[in-house]
């Protein structure tokens, strides 16, 4: 099991957002998380990534069998947790390539591996770029600064491709993407799909799931997983919206 969550309660600024969430994500699987605006999807991603200010008040989170709730943000990243942000942060003055290499080498150090030098890193980057069809010049610019919405999302996936995490949580990476970008993102995700990893794909649209076919679909509503099912659940949600969940479940 890559991720095992039991009865997770979490609050932000004293307000309880996650109210007893349970989820099991086995190795090799991709699960989709859908749910109404404000239901706690991004909060969930932030809690798993370890963001300060998101307080876990009850429950457990096991990553590869290990309790990670006491680990810092960077330790979780080094353990193999990756969050693709719903709103990637612009960092003017920090070069995109430099940033990514610093991240990768920090993770390698944590894992007891030697750092990649400039040439080795460049080779890796070139290889990943091909898959993602990301424009070369984005690498030379500051992290996300002045990037279009689509470019920011591609950059998230590019970072994921380079860091090769064990668990990736993609928070609405498909929102605001044109068809080409959507396919590029799906390509990046599918390239990383293997038996040792798992992914959580947070989305509002069934469309993404045509390209990234999930093993399971969960509906997060009011801080809990209100329903789970196979890929067909996404289609059903697309047709009926979320209100019917209350009636039947």
């Amino acid at each position: 099991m890559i991720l095992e969550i039991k009865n997770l309660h979490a609050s932000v600024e004293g307000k309880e957002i996650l109210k007893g969430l349970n989820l099991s994500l086995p190795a090799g699987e991709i699960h989709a998380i859908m749910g109404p605006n404000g239901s706690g999807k991004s909060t969930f991603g932030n809690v798993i990534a370890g963001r300060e200010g998101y307080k876990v008040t009850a429950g457990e989170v096991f990553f590869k069998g290990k309790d990670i709730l006491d680990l810092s943000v960077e330790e979780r990243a080094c353990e193999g947790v990756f969050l693709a942000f719903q709103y990637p942060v612009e960092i003017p003055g920090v070069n995109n390539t430099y940033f990514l290499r610093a991240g990768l080498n920090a993770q390698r150090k944590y894992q007891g591996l030697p750092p990649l030098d400039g040439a080795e890193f460049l080779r890796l980057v070139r290889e990943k770029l091909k898959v993602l069809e990301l424009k070369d010049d984005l690498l030379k610019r500051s992290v996300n600064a002045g990037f279009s919405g689509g470019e920011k999302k591609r950059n998230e996936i590019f970072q994921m491709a380079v860091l090769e995490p064990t668990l990736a949580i993609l928070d609405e990476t498909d929102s605001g993407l044109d068809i080409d970008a959507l396919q590029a993102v799906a390509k990046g995700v599918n390239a990383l799909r293997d038996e040792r990893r798992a992914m959580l794909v947070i989305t509002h649209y069934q469309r993404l799931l045509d390209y990234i076919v999930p093993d399971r679909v969960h509906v997060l509503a009011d801080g809990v997983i209100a329903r789970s099912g196979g890929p067909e659940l996404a289609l059903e949600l697309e047709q009926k919206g979320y209100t019917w969940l209350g009636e039947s479940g």
Partner: protein
Amino acid sequence: MSALPLSELIQQPVLAGKQEPLWLSQQRLQAAKYLQASGLPAEGSENWRYSSLRRLQTKLLEQPTELHLTEPQLLASAGLQATDNRMVFANGIYQAHLSLVPAGLRISNLNSQLHTAELESLMQTVPTATDCGFSWLNTTAFNDGLFIHLDAGQVLEAPLHFIQLGGGNSLINSRHIISLGEAAKLTLIEQFIEATEMPPTQGLFNCQTDVHLAKSARLDWSRVQALGASAVLVDRVNCWLGENSHLHSSQLDCGGLWVRHDVDVALNEPGAFVEVNGVLMLRGRQHCDVHTKIVHAAINCTSRETFKCIADDRSRGVFNGKILVQPGADGTDSAQRSDNLLLSEHARIDTKPDLEILTDDVVASHGATVGQLDEDALFYIRSRGIDSPAAKKLLMRAFYQQVVELIAEPRAQEAFTAKLDQIFEHTGKSV
């Protein structure tokens, strides 16, 4: 030699130089009179409101002493190659044996120029009224300085390093004069530093640099001020810019306990261009007060200013940016930015853009921010595996990098970056 408090020293200023021309002796006497009448700037003077002189008055100071520096010590302290052009002053005393002056150009110490017509005429243009007693003190007592006078068309390709070293508790009054003739060009890299293996500077540097740029002249000037933690510095720069001349100045203030730094630029003729950028990097109990004043006195002149201040611990930073656009200075294009980063709840930064625009045909923008490190950015960086101290450094570097990138000369960029990286290790601990 016995040390005296500053307040007494200014009452009996020592007139430097015995073999001086009459005009200079007269200037000195005049200045001494003003100084004795007005003293150092009074408490409550608007221009000095953030920088109290009270504690300075009792500071015990002595006449400048020789530092007896060797060449290897100099090269190591200033990060220089043996072949670099350089003018070196230690406690304000010219170090001929440590200097390396390019042949065929008038670059020397000021004392060797005392009887020249050029020096006399350049020193007449200095304004005689200022609210700053340090200026009077400087005129009264300066004992030497840098003198550069390039003729029309003269260009020095390699940068000239201008090194001022301190040590001990001397009162150092230096007067520097830089004059570039028509279309002359110079790249100057100035450093205020302590020498390795020398006593720390506990004295007072009182420096004044006068810069005259003739038509189409260009001065690229980077200044790294990294004096030791006990040094006191009053550094005043006056610039007069002629037609289509160009001054690009980058200032790093990261040293000294108490620093007042004034940069005055007069855009006197059409088409003149000035860019003044600065980084203040303060920690401990450092106090650094930067005042810039840019006067647009002619048509179609451009001014650009970008200042960044980072204050940690209990330090205090001040940026006051005055821009005066005089009547008739049409076609003025002026932009000023002051961005400030507080790393500790006990640090303090005051920033004050001060625009006075007395004509209509003007493009003028200014902006100031004071903030802390961006929490969202920190989380984003850390979520990629970079630890918290490294993430903070990354953001601080990004913050000042913008100014460093505006420095054209690679050696100057290097000097900035080296100094910033060096002090970086000790900054941001309290964040």
